[in-house]
Structure formats: structure tokens, C-alpha cells
């Protein structure tokens, strides 16, 4: 399996404040890779630098043969990365349908887009009923579905998801995780950020643990799920953080 996305030696700053310290990571083709970490550990910032919304001060990011440092965000999207941002970030005054079509903004194959839209509605039947509603009126769970469908509409090779289960009821969380697996089975590589380690490790192939801007642990998801340090930090047990 080849690496689709490779981050090496990343240092990121907000003004004088350093968030990443030599961050390095690989996302392999066809896998679900998960980045775990507590609040303010720098997970969302990792998303931002992959998507080009923020530039690291040092290090390199490669997606296939693309050097992402040289590309703007729209170019990165066109290169084949889809994004499900933290807190969904739907276009709340636009209809659900318009939101989905915005996901295909970088494409121009009209007939194919219409086919994909139909495919999304099969994959997310709940979304079909709300197609003409304003996105802002949807429930959190429904919005998450729309956000995922919107990202898929771009036919990405890799989808980056920032806390897809945040704020959802347990039932919806299961549904979202199933959908992520289903999407992955269709060949889309998934890179997701999560705080909820047990849920994420249940569906992931590989995982990294981020703490205060450094990767402190990585491995196959099934190994990490049994790792005592992970259990201590994320799966209940002692409150002492890992490392």
C-alpha cells in the first residue's frame, strides 16, 4: 500500500504561539486513518495545514506527487482532497441541494454530477427528504450527513473529517461511523480527527495520537485499542494523560 498523504517535520504557529512541533504522519491509500488527541492538541490545525488554510513555518506536505505547500486551497481541493470541516460549516442560507452541488464546485461534468447527486441520496436517504430545506434548519446529525455527502460530491481520493461525531446522539454516531466505513469500502481514503478514541479505533486501520502538537504514539488501530496508555488517556481508567 502506498502513502497518499505524507506530512514531515511540520512546525505550525499562530503568531508567536507554536502549535505543531515536528509533526510527521502518513495516510495510506484506501485506509481509514485517525488522529486522536485532546482539546487544543492541534488536531484542527492539522486539517487546516493539509487544506492550505494555514501554512506551516517548516516541514513538507505531499499528496500523491503534489507539493501542497505550492498549492492554494482551491487547487488542493481540485487535486482530490475533500473536506468535512469541524462543526460541519454548511452554507446555512442555501438549500441542501445547493450545498451538495457546491461540493461538486470544482467539477464540470454536469451529467456525472447529477448521477453522483442521486447516488448520495441513496447513500443518505434522510437527506433526500430535506433536499429543498435551508441547510441551517437541519438537525446536527442531518447536517453531518449533508457535510459528508457534500465532500463526496467532489469525488475526492481523500476525505479529511474533523470530529465527524461531535455533538451527535449515540444512534447517529453509529450511523455516521457506518457511513464512513461504507464510503471507505468504495475506495475513498479517510483521514479523520477524533477525540472519541474508542469509536474511532473501532473503524480505523491506523491511528496517531497527538498531544500538545507532537505525535506521541502511533500504530495499527487494533493494537492501539489494547494499548494501556490509550486506555488510560481515552478509554476511561486513570485520568493521567498518556506519554
Amino acid at each position: 500500500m502506498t502513502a497518499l498523504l505524507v506530512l514531515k517535520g511540520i512546525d505550525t504557529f499562530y503568531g508567536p504561539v507554536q502549535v505543531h512541533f515536528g509533526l510527521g504522519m502518513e495516510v495510506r491509500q484506501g485506509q481509514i486513518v485517525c488522529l486522536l488527541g485532546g482539546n487544543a492538541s492541534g488536531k484542527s490545525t492539522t486539517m487546516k495545514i493539509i487544506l492550505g488554510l494555514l501554512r506551516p513555518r517548516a516541514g513538507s506536505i505531499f499528496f500523491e506527487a503534489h507539493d501542497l505547500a505550492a498549492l492554494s486551497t482551491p487547487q488542493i481541493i481540485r487535486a482530490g482532497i475533500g473536506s468535512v470541516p469541524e462543526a460541519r460549516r454548511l452554507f446555512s442560507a442555501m438549500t441542501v441541494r445547493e450545498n451538495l452541488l457546491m461540493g461538486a464546485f470544482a467539477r464540470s461534468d454536469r451529467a456525472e454530477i447529477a448521477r453522483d447527486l442521486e447516488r448520495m441520496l441513496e447513500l443518505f436517504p434522510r437527506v433526500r427528504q430535506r433536499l429543498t430545506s435551508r441547510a441551517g434548519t437541519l438537525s446536527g446529525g442531518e447536517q453531518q450527513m449533508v457535510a459528508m455527502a457534500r465532500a463526496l460530491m467532489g469525488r475526492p481520493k481523500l476525505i479529511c473529517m474533523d470530529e465527524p461525531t461531535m455533538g451527535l446522539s449515540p444512534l447517529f454516531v453509529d450511523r455516521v461511523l457506518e457511513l464512513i466505513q461504507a464510503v471507505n469500502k468504495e475506495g475513498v481514503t479517510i483521514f479523520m480527527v477524533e477525540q472519541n478514541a474508542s469509536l474511532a479505533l473501532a473503524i480505523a486501520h491506523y491511528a496517531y495520537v497527538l498531544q500538545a502538537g507532537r505525535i506521541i504514539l502511533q500504530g495499527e488501530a487494533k493494537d492501539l485499542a489494547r494499548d494501556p496508555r490509550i486506555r488510560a488517556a481515552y478509554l476511561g481508567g486513570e485520568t493521567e494523560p498518556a506519554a
Partner: protein
Amino acid sequence: MGSWLDYTINGLIIGNIYALVAVGLALIFGVSNLINFAQGSVYAVGAYIGWTCFTYLHTPLAVTALIVVVACAGLGVAIERIGLRPLAGAARIAPLLATIGISLVLDQLLQIVFTPDPRALTSPLPNWRISVGGGTIGALDLLIAATGIVSAAVLYGFLRFTKLGWAVRATAQDRDAARQMGVNTDAVNMTVFAIASALGGLSGLLVGMYFNHIDPAMGFQATLKGVVAQVIGGMGNVPGAIFGSLLLGLTESYGVAIFGSSYRNLFSFALLLLILVLRPNGLFASARSTPPEPMTGSFVTPNRPVRVPRWAIVAAVVIAAAVPLIPAIPYVLQVLTNAWLFAMLAISLTLVAGTLGQISLGHASLLLIGAYASALFALDSHWPVWASIPAAGIVTALLGTALIAPSFRLRSHYVSIATLGIGEIVGLVILNWESLTRGPMGVTNIPPLQVGNIELDNPRAAYWITLGILVLLAMMQTRLLRSHLGRIFRAIRDDDVAARAHGISLGRYKAIAFAFGGFAAGISGGIAAHQYSYINNETFTSTVSISALTMVILGGMGNVLGAILGAVALTALPEMFRGTAEYRMLIYGVALLLLVRFRPQGILGTT
């Protein structure tokens, strides 16, 4: 005109014209949270391009309109590309100041190229009018109405059915999310500026034809009206802007019908303040909540102010005090006295805008209040000048604070709009309150500066008095800034939410700062009145407000010494190079643009 129907038609036509300006402002605000103060200047440019086409090229109206639209769209693209895009990532108020700078430059260029004199822009349309009910409608009325409707329809179609239109809407709702869908938001910005400028230019052409009158200063009022219309409809709301424009047009037209034409603008700005105070989100927003304002904080970039040693300040004051002893020409003294007066205004503004973070765009109105107060105390109440000037300072402090107080809960952009509106209102009230202010005649024969029976009518005495008062005010303000109060002001500027959470009553401290600033500005206006011996409602206009802001930014926001330095630099230097007088606002505009771009902390740094 006479019938109500006529006034209604007139109101709707004017409203249509405002709408063309306001829609552009709304698009730009929607996409980039920016009030484009250059919008009115583009409108004026449009009018002049139209005039040039009619006069020299003899093009028919349709061709002329096309040229105006294309040229103004190009100008809009240039404004965005050259003036604003480099500011991405700068403080959020920086682009707003840049558009003010661009507007100064464009207005002055028009003046240089076409002379300041107004010109006739005669409509080539046939001159028939048809009677409808009790009123009449002419060809131009119909053209303006049709332009408004067609533009709205085209814009609607664009936003609804084109890919770029979708990109514009998505960017307006969530810029980062739009980029994550692959939208090139830079291209969106450019598109929006092109559309706004094209509509603005078209509006200028139509207005010029409607009134058969254009002049290089016409843009500023247009920007103001567009902003008012936008506030009524809700900032960034495109249909709201159209509605607000029509409402504004009708309000003005009926106001003129009842009270006379000098009340036109008073009605617009009264409406503006009413909306800002009661419904800052516009008429369509449901709640009385404060506006969503992504742009908190201020222009003050965190940096260390330049430390000027005490002895250097003392030496500078001594040298300044010694200037009249050199047998210099009285002209130099006059220029410097004027600079000291401006410096008082600048330290007042630097307190409010720099230290407290409330970017006031109407500060010149404090000068007006002070000038009128002192002049009227002296003339009508026969007070001695040494009493009328301090009294003017107190009146200005109280009145200025009372005027701004209802808007204390507004933030950033909205504060700027409110102060702009208040500034206009003060001038208009002075113009219309004839029994007190003598109206458009102005106040004449104001007694010169004097203490007891000693007339200080010579340039030297005036110079020393002004300098002395300036030094006093500056020392007081420096002490204020070092005190507990100064720290609270800065806390409010840096994070008003946190300040309030710490139990700081924002209203009270804003009142204190505005009162202190009002006092200094009122004194300055008072002295000026006695020096000029004649004042009217246009002695200090919004141009003075913008000049003062430029001085403050040049010196470093919040920096007392910087404000004085900025005032001297921008008042005295242009005078020294004689020929530059007519380029003065051009210099201010370019200075503002360069500062915002390359040295936002000013010469001496922000504090």
C-alpha cells in the same frame, strides 16, 4: 412639482439610484465584511466618464452607458487587486481605511482633471412627460426605473443560476468553507468589486443626467446614502439594500415635501441613527440583538511604541515656543497655529479611536460644536472669550457624548457608521436651526482671542496660546493613559467581551473617553472660531474628520505624541510646498494607503 404622487415618484426614482449604489455595497460587505467607502467615488467617476463620452465622443446613451459600465468594472477590479488584496491578513479595519484612502485619491484626481466646478450632464433623452394621476413621469424616470429593475433581475439570475453566482453566495456565508469546496475566493472578491463598481458607475451617470449636474465631490454623499440604505436593509443583505434604498428615497422625498429641501439629508441620517439604535441588524432581522460582528478588536497592531526621551519632548516644546521669536513671516506662524489646532483634534481622536478602539469618522463635528458654542456664547451671551472657550469645551464634551451614547453598544464598523451619521447630522442641524445658529448665513464678526482687555489679535499671541493649551491637553491625556482609566480603555479596545465579563461597565468608560476627547476637540473648535472670525456649517466637514484620522494613523494609534506629530506633518508640510495645496487630499489619501499597507503602527507606534 407639487402633488404627492410627484413626490412618491421622485422618491422611488431617487431610491432606485441609491439602490444601484447600495446593492454593490451589500455584495461587497456580504463577501468580505467590508464597507467600501470608495463606492461613491466610483459613482462619481462613472458620471464623469459619461460626461466625457457625451461631450467629446458624442456617443449615444446606450454606448455611453456601456462604456461607463465596462470602465467602472475595470476600476473596481483594480481597486480590489491593487488596493485591498495585499491587505489580506492585516487588521480587519485596514481594508476599510484603505477604501477611504482610495476614495480620497479618486475624488481628488477627478478634481484635478475636471476642475472642482460643477458641470451639466444633459440627458440626451427626449423631453416629454406624461401625466399619471396627479403627477408626471418623464423618459428619464422610466429609464432609471427600468435600469433598476433590469439590474436587480440580472443580479438575481447571476446569483441564482450561474456557477460564479453560487460561489459568491457561498463565500458570503462562509469564506473558509467555500474555499474548501474549491471556490477561488480571490476571484469572487474581484467579481463582486467589478459588479458593484459597474452598478455604481451606472448610478452616477443616471444621477448626473437626472439632476443635470455633476461635481467631483458628489461621491461622498452617495456612499453615505448607500450605507444608510444598507443599514436599513441589514448589512450585506442584497434584497434588503434595495428595500432600504426605496424606503430612504421615499423618506427623503416626503421629508423635502413637508419641510423643504435643506432637510433631505437630515432625514436620511436621522433614519440611519434610529435604525442603528433600535435595529442594528436592519429591519429584516428579528431580534434586537447586537449585530454579528466578526471584526472585533481594532486597527491597533500589537507593537512597542517608540520611546521618546523626556528631554527631547521638553526640547521640542521649547523650540516650538521659540519659533515666534525668530523674525519669521507671519504666514509660518499661522500655519503652525493651525497645526496645533489640528493636533488638539488629533489627540482627541487618538484617544477615542486608538486607545478605546472606536474608529470615529465624524470627529470634525466636535469642532463644529465647539466653534459654534464659543462663538455664540461670546456674541449672544456676551461672555468674555477666555470663558467662552472653556465653556465650549464642556458643551462639546457633554453634547458629543450624549449624541454618541445611544450607539455605545455598537461595535467596530457600526461605530464608524454611527459617528459618520452623527457628524453629518450635527452639520445639518446647524444649517437648519436658524434661530440659534443663523443657518446658512453662518456666524460673522466673532470677537478675536482676548484675555481681559488685551486683544491677542496678533499671530504671535495666538500661536503661544494655542501651543500652551495643546501642551496642557497633551499632558493631561498622557496622565490619563497611564492611570487606571487608561488601562480600562485599552482593555475595552482589546476585548470588549472579556472586559464586560470582568464587570467593566462599557458605557460608562466609553462616555468618559468621549467626554475627554470632546473637551479637547471643543476647545480646538472654540479657538478656531475666534481666529477665523467667521464660521458656518461647512467650516469643518467630513474631510476634516478623515484628515484627522490620517494624522492619528500616521502618528500611531493611541499615541499622544504621535497624534501631534501626525498633525504637524500633515498640516504644515503640504503648506511648505506651496504648489501642493490642491493636491492635499491626494497626499492624505496616498499617505493613508501607504500607512495601512506598510506601517500600520504609524511613525511612533501604537500604545
